């Protein structure tokens, strides 16, 4: 690929690690028999994306950051005993989990229960295959990588369902039912919100979206604020993050679908929850925050570093919501997905389609996006406020002083007279 902004594609140019791995693969292809180089490419891709990017960030920034930052949010210290400032706590936890026995109840469906963690973990690795870390740093540059991401991220629900069903425990079954219901409900507004993004950038490739945002010098979040908000809420619901973690709500149904799991089987579920959150953060920073591009900064700073920083900052948003927001009821969550998010996403799609038609029919230049951006931000604010008003989210639902829970039901019909 000839990229004008990339000063060189020499192997020692570590602004793009794709140069280095490409050079290695070119040399190996001359030596090795046909086809073997693909296997090595897969291995290099796996090491680069998973072992360098996911595992350390997940171990240290993921687990530790999660516990430390949420601890600070909730006025506690968090782990601070193992190692300096508790930095070795995740490793100690992992060792402890590996030592523990993985129990399987007698009445459980043994094989399904054993396979469930694997079904849950495998897609997390596959997700990182299409995320672009730099202009040349993408393992599989599929032309439909957006749909690939959506398809693969719908697979872990099956793993969670298998876990909940196989344990033969009523709390697990409740958790499984909730996670399936939530996944189906929140998948719809999520796809609708991403449809607007794909329509505006007229590509389904994640790499293409990054190039599009780089070319128009504007991130997608400014053009699609509704889509960003809808995506963030939907993905945190699908990932079982706290405002919506009803599938493993420990105050209601013990631990949901994880009730009967112990040892490293439970550890896999726990670790991969963070892995999926990281993948979702990486995806959001690719689609909405410009990916590896940073208004020209990528010429001086390695693009994968920009991408990693954006991902971690976005991940902080997940932590923030997890640490501060209380858990919602399942009927509130369902009503929110169908009555609030879906109409909003559809209206957003209407606005984007109109703008796209104006853009292409009038043959306007790229500069028009700087006109669309303020329009869309104002429209987003107006739409959210108006739709909340129509739905009956009244100011008395956000009181100044604490009230009884039964008074503060989330949904009050606009026609007056409570339920």
């Amino acid at each position, binding site marked *: 690929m000839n990229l004008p902004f990339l000063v060189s594609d020499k192997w020692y140019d570590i602004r793009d690690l794709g140069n280095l791995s490409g050079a290695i693969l070119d040399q190996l292809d001359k030596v090795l028999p046909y086809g073997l180089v693909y296997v090595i490419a897969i291995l290099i891709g796996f090491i680069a994306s998973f072992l360098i990017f996911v595992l350390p960030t997940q171990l240290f920034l993921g687990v530790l950051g999660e516990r430390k930052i949420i601890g600070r949010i909730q006025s506690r210290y968090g782990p601070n005993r193992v190692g300096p400032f508790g930095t070795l706590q995740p490793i100690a936890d992992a060792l402890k989990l590996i030592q523990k026995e993985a129990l399987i109840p007698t009445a459980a469906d043994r094989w399904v229960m054993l396979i469930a963690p694997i079904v849950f973990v495998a897609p997390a690795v596959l997700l990182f295959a299409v995320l672009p870390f730099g202009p040349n740093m993408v393992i599989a540059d*599929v032309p439909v990588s957006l749909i690939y991401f959506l398809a693969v991220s719908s697979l872990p629900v*099956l793993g969670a*369902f298998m876990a909940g069903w196989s344990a033969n425990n009523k709390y697990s079954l409740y958790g499984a039912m909730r996670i*399936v219901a939530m996944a*189906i409900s929140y998948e719809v507004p999520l796809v609708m919100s991403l449809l607007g993004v794909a329509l505006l950038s007229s590509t389904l490739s994640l790499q293409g979206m990054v190039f599009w945002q780089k070319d128009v010098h504007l991130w997608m979040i400014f053009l699609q604020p509704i889509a960003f908000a809808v995506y963030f809420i939907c993905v945190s619901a699908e990932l079982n993050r706290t405002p919506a973690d009803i599938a493993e709500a420990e105050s209601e149904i013990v631990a949901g679908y994880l009730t009967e799991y112990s040892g490293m089987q439970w550890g896999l579920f726990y670790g991969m929850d963070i892995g999926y959150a990281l993948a979702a953060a990486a995806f959001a920073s690719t689609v909405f925050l410009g990916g590896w591009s940073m208004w020209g900064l990528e010429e001086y700073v390695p693009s994968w570093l920009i991408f990693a920083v954006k991902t971690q900052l976005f991940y902080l948003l997940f932590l923030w919501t997890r640490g501060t927001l209380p858990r919602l009821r399942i009927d509130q969550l369902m009503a929110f997905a169908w009555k609030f998010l879906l109409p909003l996403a559809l209206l957003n799609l209407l606005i984007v389609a109109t703008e796209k038609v104006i853009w292409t029919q009038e043959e306007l230049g790229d500069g028009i996006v700087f006109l669309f951006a303020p329009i869309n931000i104002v429209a987003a604010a107006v739409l959210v406020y108006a739709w909340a008003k129509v739905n009956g989210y009244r100011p008395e639902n956000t009181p100044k002083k604490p009230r009884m829970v039964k008074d503060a039901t989330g949904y009050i019909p606009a026609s007056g007279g409570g339920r």
Partner: protein
Amino acid sequence: MALEGFGPAFAFWLLSAITLISAGGVMMARNLLHAVLFLIVTFIGVAGFFILLSAEFIAMAQVVIYVGAVAVLILFAILLTPRSARDNSETVWGAPAALLSIALAAVLIFVIHDTAWSETNSFQAPSVEDLGRALLSTWVLPFQLASVLLTAALIGAIMLVRSPEEEAEDALS
């Protein structure tokens, strides 16, 4: 992408094995949930075939729709019907079913073998843009009809699950 060489051939036989074995599992499994899980593996195997034929979009649509939505819906139905997961006993319809499937397979193999397939050496896989243009120009009427059908099904489902209390509540307001 040419379908020659070791890689595609290996992928083809591997995918065939996965698809056929899991399809057999769907039939043989006595537990309904195990059958659905095998069905999901079959769907993923078929998606692999689409990728092998350079139809990435259809492969992804297969995974999104069949694995992500249809299979999950079937699982949901199993969850809400308490006796379905119980072991199903042997049925007397085994022999007729086998006969019927052998007959069907014979007809299909005969048709496939007998058809004069057109062959080409230069094949350009249609992109998503081509697919979208075809759907909204040549095939716009079937496309719109399908969307009307789905909307009707959606409204019908909502009407079916409404309780009499909700009906009365709506009649008042």
